[in-house]
């Protein structure tokens, strides 16, 4: 298996650390620049909504956070699956690195959504399908984190958490399609549509910039956490060897 892309190439922590070291400055730098541009466009450069006024600017935080939360859970499920199927040694580390970051983005999406809901829907919270399934996503993240740390033997916690991560994947399509299956207060999909986005370009471009910035930030944080965990494990192994 010397040719082609092979995930086991990166099973070697040393190789991953070198790759992460090379990628991290680019990810971090890109995130900083895009956040600067995106925040300027979102807060100053884009027009207020004709109905919602300036409250529409919450969207530039809310939508990217929600995307990161879903992408994070997708990665968590994929990492869990590869930990269970191939015993990929980095997958456990990746899961442990992703979960708190994803939980954080889920929390941000829930809070910003709630703050956005008050002026537009007149309430902080409704038991709408999208909101409920997103709350379940938050609890899945929290359960994953709690399970990871619930055992004296570290490996056991990670493997159990991998199973719950894979089972929880079932929630992702429910979140995605909840606005189509149930007729709810939360608006339906307006970006990834078959007939093109239904948002005006003057708002779409700042939103895209923010989404890319959030994505780079997400991977920068996850990689930093993975790097720290691997170095910690190496340090611990070295301390034992002495």
């Amino acid at each position, binding site marked *: 298996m010397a040719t082609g892309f092979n995930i086991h190439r990166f099973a070697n922590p040393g190789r991953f650390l070198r790759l992460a070291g090379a990628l991290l400055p680019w990810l971090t730098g890109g995130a900083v620049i895009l956040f600067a541009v995106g925040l300027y466009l979102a807060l100053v450069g884009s027009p207020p909504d004709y109905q919602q006024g300036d409250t529409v600017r919450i969207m530039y935080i809310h939508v990217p956070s929600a995307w990161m939360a879903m992408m994070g859970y997708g990665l968590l499920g994929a990492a869990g699956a590869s930990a*269970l199927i191939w015993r990929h040694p980095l997958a456990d580390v990746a899961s442990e690195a992703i979960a708190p970051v994803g939980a954080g983005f889920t929390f941000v999406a829930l809070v910003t959504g709630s703050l956005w809901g008050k002026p537009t829907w007149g309430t902080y919270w409704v038991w709408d399908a999208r909101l409920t399934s997103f709350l*379940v996503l938050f609890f899945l993240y929290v359960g994953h984190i*709690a399970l990871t740390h*619930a*055992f004296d033997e570290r490996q056991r916690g990670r493997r*159990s958490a991998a*199973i719950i991560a894979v*089972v929880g994947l079932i929630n992702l399509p429910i979140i995605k399609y909840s606005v189509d299956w149930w007729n709810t207060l939360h608006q339906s999909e307006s970006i990834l549509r078959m007939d093109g986005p239904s948002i005006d370009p003057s708002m779409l471009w700042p939103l895209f910039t923010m989404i890319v910035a959030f994505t780079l930030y997400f991977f920068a944080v996850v990689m930093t956490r993975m790097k720290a965990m691997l170095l910690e494990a190496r340090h611990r192994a070295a301390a034992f060897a002495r």
Partner: protein
Amino acid sequence: MSAFLALLKRDLVLSYRQGIDAWVVVLFFLAAGILFPFAIGPEPNALMRVSTGVVLSMAALAALLSLDRLYQGDFEDGSLDLMVLGPLPLELTALAKALAHWLSTGLPLLIAAPLLALMLNAPSESYGPMLLALALATPALSLLGGLGAALTLGSRRGGILLTLLILPLYVPVLIFAAGLISRSLLLEDDPTGALLLLSGVDLGLLAITPWATAAALRQALR
């Protein structure tokens, strides 16, 4: 098949001989349910409005309460090791355990449910749909619960962690069960769709959870 039935019979005999355990679940179900008239006031119309929902959610909590012993005893005394070594695939062991859990807690809850509904002043036409919804929801709760019990086996703070892990997974089951009850009570609405949805959840879980539970048990015994 005979190994499956033998395991099922063993678990049922165990729970029957430790009789108080099954009663504790039913008593918890009733005691937790009658907190509601005290908390929201004894006004009959207010109680009628929430009655079936309280029965459903208390059944979910009562099913959770009995889960932490599902594998714990067998894990501690080594029976679980024998089950892994035995001729029965671990997936079927998990299924037998979930079935035994349903027969020893889900079924008693189903029998006790009309009593709690009566005390909560449930409308008489809601009994049928409520029992149907419970009969379809409790197997799902047992299957999911078996997974949770296997995942948290041997952890610190097993019980509370199990609750945190499994309650969010109970949410869809409760939503569909409540949908079935409310659809059945509206005259112009056809409850078939809700019925099929809830049965679909049961069948889906029946297909998935034994595998996940067996994987979790293997992790626990490594």
